[in-house]
């Protein structure tokens, strides 16, 4: 049993890693979609789009790994969460359809470019909002009876989930704007910096609000944050978050390259760590722990071998693909 406990924990971290990788990578390209209407029609929009065209597909693959990995490693959690958040998941998928095809269609059909730009923005906002609300629905707890979802089909819609949804949209907008500060230059970069500052403030406020709401949401969450011994490793998270927030605002005033993006990434990492402290060891609060939901050891071992072999390769060639398209985006786009 001791081995099984370890493997399940390892798998919880692998899924958390996939979700984090997804959130930051697709986060910045969804963020660009969210901010798209504020860019000038023409070269500014084209350059913003070109800065993510070669990588968006790889970014979204992490979502498939998050979903597929959850299915494989914690099938019960997958089977409970998706029916519980059904309309959100469907909305997210359809949002991703619209924004995904817009990458190609807007170039193929200049006559309807505005339409596809709107699809890009609408799809990005819907997807981001739905993802944030899904997280909120998970945190506020899902009713389970006999290995199945037992709530009604609008349980996911509460003021709390709306808050987490808006928070996610703001956070993605921050990542997207910070990415553009890195990839663009000239007036477009200035524009992105202004957007990044506003998005940063919105993110701080909403992140704080969600964190405080969490303490009221569930007695167990509050206990994990406010009682010994958990408090000793929980307390550094808000402190570090405040430090990063200050550094980010200062960087956005002077920096012309990648620093704001890395700091925004750090902010998300701390948010993820805070989420871990809040939820651990539950994968579907308030009833299902990671051990309740875990796939059997044979499945875990088989997949772990695959992850151990492929993950370094995936990270390697993904990094290479980013490296190929490094530097500021030219006005003429990639060829």
């Amino acid at each position: 049993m001791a081995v099984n406990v370890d493997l399940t924990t390892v798998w919880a971290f692998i899924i958390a890693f996939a979700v984090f990788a997804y959130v930051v990578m697709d986060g910045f390209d969804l963020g660009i979609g969210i901010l798209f209407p504020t860019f000038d029609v023409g070269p500014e929009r084209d350059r913003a789009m070109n800065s993510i065209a070669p990588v968006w597909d790889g970014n979204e693959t992490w979502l498939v790994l998050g979903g597929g990995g959850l299915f494989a490693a914690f099938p019960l959690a997958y089977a409970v969460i998706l029916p519980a958040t059904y309309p959100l998941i469907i909305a997210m998928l359809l949002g991703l359809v619209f924004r995904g095809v817009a990458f190609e269609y807007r170039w193929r059909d200049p006559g309807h470019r505005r339409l596809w730009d709107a699809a890009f923005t609408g799809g990005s906002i819907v997807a981001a909002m739905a993802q944030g609300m899904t997280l909120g629905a998970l945190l506020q707890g899902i009713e389970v009876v006999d290995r199945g979802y037992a709530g009604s089909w609008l349980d996911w819609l509460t003021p709390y989930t709306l808050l987490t949804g808006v928070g996610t949209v703001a956070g993605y907008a921050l990542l997207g704007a910070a990415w553009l500060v890195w990839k663009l230059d000239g007036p477009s970069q200035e524009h992105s910096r202004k957007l990044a500052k506003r998005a940063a403030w919105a993110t701080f406020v909403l992140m704080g609000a969600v964190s405080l709401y969490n303490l009221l949401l569930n007695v167990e969450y509050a206990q994990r944050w406010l009682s010994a011994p958990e408090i000793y490793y929980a307390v550094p998270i808000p402190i570090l978050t405040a430090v990063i927030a200050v550094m980010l605002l200062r960087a956005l005033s002077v920096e012309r390259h990648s620093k704001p993006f890395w700091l925004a990434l750090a902010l998300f990492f701390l948010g993820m760590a805070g989420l871990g402290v809040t939820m651990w060891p539950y994968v579907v609060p308030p009833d299902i722990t990671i051990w309740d939901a875990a796939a059997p050891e044979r499945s875990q071992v088989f997949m772990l071998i695959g992850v151990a072999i492929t993950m370094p390769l995936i990270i390697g060639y993904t990094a290479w693909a980013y490296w190929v398209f490094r530097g500021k985006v030219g006005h003429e786009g990639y060829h």
Partner: protein
Amino acid sequence: MFDNVDALLLARIQFAFTVSFHFIFPAFSIGLASYLAVLEGLWLKTGKPIYLDLFKFWLKIFAIAFAMGVVSGIVMSYQFGTNWSVFSDRAGPVIGPLMAYEVLTAFFLEAGFLGVMLFGMNKVGKKLHFAATLMVAVGTFISAFWILSVNSWMQTPTGFEMGANGQFLPGDSWAAIIFNPSFPYRLVHTLIAAYLTTAFVVGGVGAWHLLRDKANLHARKMFSMALWMAAIVAPVQIFAGDMHGINTLEHQPQKVMAMEGHYQSHPEGAPLILFGIPDSEEKRVKYAVEIPKLSSLILKHDLNAPLAGLDTIPDDEEPPVGIVFWSFRIMVGIGFAMLGLGMWSLLARWRGKLYDWPLLHRAALAMAPSGFVAVLAGWITTEVGRQPFVIYNLMRTADAASPLDAPAVGASLLAFVVVYFSVFGAGTWYILRLMSQTPHSGETGVKRGDTGPIRTAGITPGPTQNPGSAETLPRNREEAE
């Protein structure tokens, strides 16, 4: 508005709809990725610009088809959980890891190298670019491997144990799960189908341009390449399909009974029913046109071999005969039509009229979408033929669905129908428009920018081909930064 409809039926319609739509794109992009790799390889080997032109012509189409495949595929990876949560919970420990392997070994590979394939030729050089194209092509193949293994396991489950909580659990050997009895046959049959589908699309596009200008060298080249593929691969596919059918007879007899329309057992040689109208009420095929004993000959290689019929199967374990009967005939009919066109092209080559036989070109144009119809018909045959089970003989489809109300499933189905038809309809229109543009020398690749002399630069026109041209300037400026 959906109150009077069964949530289960709506969930089944939704899955059939989303998976059928999705399947169209990989059926095309598996073959097209390989065709692109062949074109680029030939260009690198021979240095002939015609191969590069064709590569760029098809790359633009590939970019759109692939994007549609990606977004419709993400939907599929969540459909299991949203609509079939009981199935996901129970089968997850066995099929989940196979799907995780698909993501790890295929999706990342395709997505990781796609950006370089589409936009990177000037940034990484020819050889690395060719490597990226190969990686994308290999990725599509690996993806088919895993997902067909999953599907085959649902058809012919092996290598599992039943858990106390009702879950299917992996046994000692993963090889027994992955290489389940129907998998090798299904993999070969489906991959060949994808190649044939692409060959007929490429051939149809070539034919369209030959009909407009039979001297177009680019159209000639793609038409010739595609019809070599058809002539060689169509017979192989018929053979592979026959092997797959015999395998199905061994492991899923009632599927074959439904395909053949054999309501009754035939102890002394079963007839091959060519056409007819299956009537499941009366349990017979009306107006049947049949050839005596031929079915036994095909399936058992013996004219007088006995073949059991659906009368040996309990009524509540029979698949819906009508759908399976017809979809099977559509698939086989198209298969033989493909073979016919392939043979016709050989005759045309022999007579030196491959590029000068408008009737052949019209036939090839008419058959351009035939692969998609055949692939879907084949898929329907195998999936509907598995009913009423989701995991053959072990778990019923009716027991697999999520605990959702009909309005929720109905509303999402409606949303999928509206969005898929409009979004993928637009994409298909863009693809058709690209296909209708005459292929020519100096093709541009995937364009990324406004119109104008500088911004229309394609992925390649490199310094060696267009020395000092406007296209090379921005590249240099970029490198300087």
